[in-house]
């Protein structure tokens, strides 16, 4: 069967009941989706399937023939970050990083579907994602910024790490 991942078409060898997560990580070597709980409870494995955020650990690859999958590797590049990646960088929305790929893809889908900077709506959209560094405040700030279409000077962000936007504290 065929699967398009980040714009590239792959002919897969994995069995139909293999999870998309295992196909991405083990067969294709794309490791941004994380194997967290592997039962749908943590959101670390979330990818986009035809634009919708889905848990890759819960999807048998056999139902995805011809689908288009996007992982963080397909959102942007180090030199050309996607808006959600810029927002996460600017707002220091990543700590250990384990939940970040899933968070960013869910947030990207939320913004692309016309999501606003309403905190309640963002919380609902990211409700399936767990951050054990307890970084939710900054993550929600980053998603709100991306939803508003804020633009960032990441060079300035890098020059004053962590001090750019902490609820008014300078």
């Amino acid at each position, binding site marked *: 069967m065929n699967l398009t991942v980040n714009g590239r078409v792959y002919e897969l060898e994995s*069995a*139909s*009941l293999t*999870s998309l997560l*295992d196909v991405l990580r083990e067969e294709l070597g794309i490791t941004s989706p994380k194997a967290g*709980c*592997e*039962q*749908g*409870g*943590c*959101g670390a494995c*979330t990818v986009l399937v035809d634009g*919708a*955020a*889905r*848990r890759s*650990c*819960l*999807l*048998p690859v*056999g*139902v995805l023939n011809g689908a288009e999958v996007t992982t963080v590797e397909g959102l942007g590049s180090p030199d050309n970050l996607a808006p959600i990646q810029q927002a996460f960088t600017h707002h220091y929305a990543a700590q250990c990083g384990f939940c970040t790929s899933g968070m960013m893809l*869910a947030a990207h889908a939320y913004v692309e579907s016309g999501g606003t900077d309403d905190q309640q709506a963002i919380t*609902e*959209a990211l*409700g*399936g994602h*767990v951050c054990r560094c307890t970084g939710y405040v900054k993550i929600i700030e980053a998603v709100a910024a991306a939803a508003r279409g804020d633009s960032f000077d990441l060079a300035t962000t890098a020059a004053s790490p962590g001090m750019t936007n902490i609820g008014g504290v300078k």
Partner: protein
Amino acid sequence: MAPAPEVLSPTSPAEAAQAFGDGTGVTVVAGGTIVLPELTYGRLRPEKALLLSRAGLSGVSVDGPTTTIGAATPLADLTGLPAPLGPCTANVADLEIRGQATLGGNVCAGGGADAPRGDVQGALLALGATARSTGAGGEKTEPLEAFLDHRDGRLLLDVSFEQPAAGAFVALDRPHTHDYTALAVSAARATDGTVRVAATGAGSHGQRLPSAEAKANDPAAAGEAALADVSPHDDALASAWYRSKTLPVLVRRALAELKEAS
């Protein structure tokens, strides 16, 4: 190593029914949200798997007062329906899971070891839903209550119900990685005035609460009466004691909500 399972991807309801046969040795995979972890952790080693995603069993149709929902319809497509089913499906897990988990998978879910499964069973029982399924002896349409007792050997095709005059859904949730529902109560008043009340999480699967229904006009009394209909259990989400203290409250609230909505 076990041989790889035979995997079938039917492309029509008739093909799905034929592939399911009498259900012997068949593992049905609709959204995958329950089955995939079982496969991943090696607790399930199917001989034959039936993937329903392309079987044409998805969709909601409304014909006069009757709503029919295909078994492979994602829960996300149902959250806008009136109470109790709409709010019940909106209460399941999170946005991404609801986009993938199906009505049929939820109806047919076995009891989970750590938490109740089958959130929609209670809502559909309160609606007096009927289930159309296939399996040994061919196609069969029956009340959902009867279907729930022998669902393991059947392939659910769709469920139907008459839109109620009023409905209510209340749930006790416990914050968790994804909010499993420890206990929920659905109530609906049919257009002929019949009130049905049902619980999810008070037993091994969703169940009607006939003692509460008999006192539907007195929500507080109905709440206390409901305890006669259930045998609550302990699991990771709540103790039997906690469930038995909470059930009367949820029944009372659901019936009060129903009165307001009527």
